[in-house]
């Protein structure tokens, strides 16, 4: 089945130790999103790629970076994780050029920072 896959599902890192979360999709969608979701809160958009074009949200800290080497894969790099970065990180995709398309979410990666 076409889907959005996130690895790992659970990630533990130490304060200040760089970590990379990965997302892959078999939907061949041209838009990929990264969201941060803290407990009992709504997902917060960090950035997205429209094909190779990177779009950063204005309030996303510089500590968060992203790479999209090809259509299928997108990575979230946290350069120096702090305790406040512990959260669920959700990857999503959207196909088509219109605004009427739904987003397809992966299962998320829960990040713990020790």
């Amino acid at each position, binding site marked *: 089945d076409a889907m*959005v896959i*996130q690895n790992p599902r659970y990630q533990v890192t130490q304060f200040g130790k760089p970590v990379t979360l990965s997302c892959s999709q078999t939907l061949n969608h041209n838009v990929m999103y990264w969201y941060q979701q803290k407990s*009992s*809160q*709504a*997902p917060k*958009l960090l950035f*997205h790629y429209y094909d190779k074009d990177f779009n950063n949200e204005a*309030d996303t800290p510089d500590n968060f970076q992203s790479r999209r080497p090809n259509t299928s894969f997108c990575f979230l790099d946290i350069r120096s994780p702090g305790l406040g970065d512990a959260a*669920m990180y*959700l990857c*999503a995709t*959207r196909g088509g050029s*219109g*605004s*009427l398309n*739904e*987003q*397809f*979410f*992966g*299962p*998320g990666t*829960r990040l713990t920072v020790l």
Partner: protein
Amino acid sequence: SQQGEEDPQALSIQEGENATMNCSYKTSINNLQWYRQNSGRGLVHLILIRSNEREKHSGRLRVTLDTSKKSSSLLITASRAADTASYFCATVGGAAGNKLTFGGGTRVLVKP
């Protein structure tokens, strides 16, 4: 930034009862979408309603949209224990363009 607010924040009902939750938003939209999130999981798209639509149905789900009041409601009829989840509304359009802007969510507990 969060555009919408959802009401109630939490809802507890018995299996078989209906669950209604409301979403309000602030700016003009192209469409409004509802998503479900089971505990510790990703979001699943439930239904999309366009700005020129007033009501939409999908199985046991009924969504209404009142653009004059900038509000939407989601009704789940004949709820089941498996409907226990958080439900988020998300708007598309306005200053946010094609991005989803989520409401705060409603946590629904369906007791067997």
